[in-house]
């Protein structure tokens, strides 16, 4: 049996202040000390744990938030002294994209490294913008490729990065003219990207590199951070370079992974040539800000020979437009770009990496369905360390342009506790990606797809709301919402 890719996770409880959804209110002064107290009966020992926590002089002064809101104690108390309320601090977390539930789920995944499993059905809105308007398809009973849970170990999540010639060309005397292709194969369709905003703590960058090594993938780092990465991990680093950097980063380029990134600009061709002089087999990827006209630029760069393109959306997964307003979501932009490359006839030669707004495991699958080869995970890694996305994430973009901005971290930023302990931060990042990998396999298994490479651009394996709604409800009379009586 060939070696199977497995992400080894380790339970690593977060060291930051956890914000929970439910807060208990207990009118203790009215307690009758009756013999039917409901607190010892709690299925989760919430009251007992809280009492012990409060008595512990060394414990942090903060609630434990262990309540699952089963209401057993609230409804059972003989005097009705207990009640619950939704914690406003919880509702304050994140923004309209990085919602509190999403942040909380990410924390749990980073704690445990497991696929989140729960009882009861789906609880959220029927659909939403962006990725929330896509359902992945599944195969029912009559699909021979379908192999179910027993074949799950054999589902491949590997992807190739690099130029892929469509055919080999030989000279008249039988020698191969096509230059040999140097592909980087990574076993996870995700690389670890720089955060959305300038987190200058080197600890986060080092943890990313270390996690990338453990995951056998790559981590994108600014060159000035990359030089601090220990030799053990440097082989997993993709440094971001600019033209003037190249000469002074010769050692880094040689030691780093087989890929480097260049910020898009007029001089990328010259810079790429210089890099290849230093490291002939280096894959040069171009980092582009996703804009409404990115498809044109992608085609242009592909024609120039740049076959690995990293598209950076904003943190809500939207294009950046000239008026500063969010543009289309990456699901739409990717479908356009993928379609253009197919039309131009060189889609299979190009590797598209997408970042920005990849917040959940399902986003990884859906971005690939829409046309990306792999994704780059950014803000989710910070969230795994306790980040609550308290900045206005929508205005920040991971194209490197903001990296000289002044430090804007809150003095109580929860990830500060993580940056001094790289192994801890590494474990949480690995756990998160382990949970994502497991979920990707669940989805691939349900779809009856045996390798993630085959998922790219496979819109036939997805259900788009706009289309299915027209098909299902097209013959219903449409009435403006306002006409509905309260």
């Amino acid at each position, binding site marked *: 049996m060939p070696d199977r890719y497995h992400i080894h996770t380790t339970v690593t409880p977060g060291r930051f202040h956890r914000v929970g959804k439910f807060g208990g209110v207990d009118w203790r002064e009215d307690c009758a000390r009756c013999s039917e107290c409901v607190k010892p009966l*709690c*299925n*989760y020992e919430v009251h007992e744990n809280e009492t012990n926590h409060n008595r512990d002089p060394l414990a942090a002064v903060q609630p434990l938030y262990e309540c*699952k*809101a*089963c*209401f057993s104690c*609230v*409804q*059972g*108390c003989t005097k009705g002294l207990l*009640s*619950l*309320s*939704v914690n406003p601090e919880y509702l304050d977390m994140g923004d309209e994209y990085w919602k509190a539930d999403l942040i909380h*789920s990410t924390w749990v995944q980073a704690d445990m490294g497991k*696929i989140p*499993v*729960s*009882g*009861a*059905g*789906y*609880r*959220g*809105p*029927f659909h939403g913008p962006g990725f929330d308007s*896509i*359902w*992945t*398809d*599944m*195969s*029912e*009973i*009559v*699909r021979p490729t379908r192999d*179910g*849970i*027993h074949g799950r170990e054999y589902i491949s999540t590997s992807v190739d990065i690099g130029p892929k010639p469509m055919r080999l060309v030989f000279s008249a005397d039988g020698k191969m003219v096509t230059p040999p292709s140097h592909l980087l194969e990574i076993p996870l369709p995700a690389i670890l990207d720089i955060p959305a905003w300038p987190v200058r703590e080197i600890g986060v960058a080092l943890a990313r590199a270390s996690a990338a090594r453990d995951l056998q993938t790559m981590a994108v780092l600014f060159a000035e951070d990359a030089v601090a990465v220990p030799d053990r991990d440097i082989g997993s680093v993709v440094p971001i370079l600019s033209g003037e950097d190249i000469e002074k980063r010769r050692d880094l380029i040689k030691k780093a992974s087989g890929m480097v990134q260049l910020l898009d600009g007029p001089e990328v061709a010259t810079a790429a040539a210089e890099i290849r002089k230093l490291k002939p087999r280096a894959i040069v990827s171009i980092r582009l800000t996703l804009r409404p006209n990115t498809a044109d630029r992608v085609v242009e760069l592909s024609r120039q020979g740049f076959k690995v393109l990293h598209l950076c959306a904003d943190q809500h997964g939207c294009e950046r437009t000239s008026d500063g307003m969010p543009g289309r979501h990456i699901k739409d932009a990717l479908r356009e770009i993928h379609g253009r490359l197919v039309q131009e006839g060189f889609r299979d030669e190009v590797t598209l990496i997408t970042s920005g707004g990849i917040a959940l*495991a399902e986003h990884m699958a859906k971005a690939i369905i829409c046309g990306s080869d792999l994704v780059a995970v950014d803000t989710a890694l910070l969230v795994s360390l306790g980040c609550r996305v308290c900045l206005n994430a929508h205005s920040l973009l991971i194209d490197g342009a903001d990296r000289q901005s002044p430090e804007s971290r809150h003095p109580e930023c929860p990830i500060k506790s993580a940056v001094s302990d790289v192994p801890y931060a590494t474990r949480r990042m690995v756990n998160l990606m382990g949970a994502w990998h497991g979920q990707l396999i*669940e*989805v691939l*298994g*349900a*779809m009856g797809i045996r390798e993630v490479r085959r998922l790219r651009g496979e819109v*036939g394996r997805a*259900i788009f709301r706009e289309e*299915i709604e027209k*098909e*299902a*409800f097209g*013959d*219903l*009379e*449409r*009435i*403006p*919402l306002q006409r*509905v009586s309260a």
Partner: protein
Amino acid sequence: MTTTIADLKMRNGAKFERLGNSDYPQETVERKVRPVPDRYRNAIGKFKVDRLANCIGCGKCGEVCAYGVHLKPEGFKYTIRPKDYLCIGPACLETGRDCVSQCPEKAIRVRLNPNAECLGDPRWSSDLVLATWHMAETGHTPPPHLEYRVGESGGGFDKIRFKFEVDGSESVTADVDKTADQQLEALPEIDTGLELNRRNDNRPRIHIDIPVYGGGMSFGSVSINTILAKARAMTAWNSFTCTGEGGYPDRLKPYDDHVITQVATGLFGVREETIQRVRIVEFKYAQGAKPGLGGHLLGDKNTPDVAQMRGAVAGNALFSPFPFHSVYSVEDHKKHLDWIKEVNPRCLVSVKVSTPTDVDMVAVGSYYAGAHIIHLDGSYGGTGAAPDIAKKNIAMPIEYAIPKVHKFLAAEGIRDKVTLIASGGIRTAYDALKAIALGADGVVVGTVEMIALGCVRCSTCESGRGCPRGIASTDPELVDLMGLDWATQRLINLQNSWREQMVSVLRKLGLPSIQSLRGRTDFLCYLADE
């Protein structure tokens, strides 16, 4: 208030013929509505009534309140703690009998209950949970301050309305003001029954009195009391419940005629005799909440009793494979169905599938393979345990699948030869009616039954000791939290309330039967955002 409907025999549903193959003495359960209060001491309502310290105990509030919130029993010096779950909130101001303004000391305050705000989610809003509790408690339509028809998910059934709801020409809550007797008088006018066998294949034409039956929940995922209560309630309503994939507990035998044996991919507890004793056998190919994945029982809930029933080892997590590895074509599928039909020559066969893009093809294939019932389970359905990613992202919601399959079966010319059942997100009587208007013949429910039994959707059914409220647990101590009689009556009441609402809507639409609503999308409209 006790309302009897024992004299209610459905016109077409009065043939309670003894069709089952069971040799076990069958029990009957009385179809009668009785009030069943919450089994916890402090029921939760939408509003919270605070009595402040300056209350002088005059009892005026008890005199004016028409809903029984305030009580000052004979000989008591003070009024007892308000039963605020009965309070109707600000709407009471219009009655002129509200406690807040009538209190001489201004010692009463009414506000939204923070507990109620912690309940629910967009799909099952707090109001829907509370309204379902009300239906289970009283057996009748909830009061107007609770939204009992739609949730807050912003799509699907929550964006579809019957046109009469939108035009405002008639209030659908008008029934609330009528007495129960008046409602009963109107009930026999409408037939809510459903024929399940349309194939004319010499197998029994099984009739159920309501277009609803209970979804599969295995022993292990839920408690024995939950299973029995579901079976007893559906016996009362001459309908069905389903075993799920956990085997056939002996205590279900008295209700064999109203039980569907499920044959799922793990074949847990499936034996020839469990197939032979029932009137319907269901093949579960997939489940809406986790399409493309098998069943999932975490190790903690696999107690010795559960393991014995399933022929497994206690404490181990049990996964069912996906799919049936013996079925990769319609021919294989037919072979499966033939097997069941051979084992039980008098049963009907139902095929439960989830909702991929090609669900219409699957449905047609199932018909040609010999299925009597095609059961579509939409992706927002319930589960005892499933990966969160599967609940939301795999396969389409049932609202999309019903019209797709209905139209395809009609185009194929076989729509009237097969019964189409929808499940996976049918939360209310209105959801059921909309599903039927979109093209289904009837619906299967699951989560709403759990809510009626007191589920608060805390989503912790899957692990540890299971449900802290004793519904979805096999822990002996927790199971005892819910009595069988109480649970049975709650479910009988729920179905009575649903039937009242169905009759009310059908009457408004001028239709004589639930079957005449099928596919009538002209009664529906879609709420557009623009």
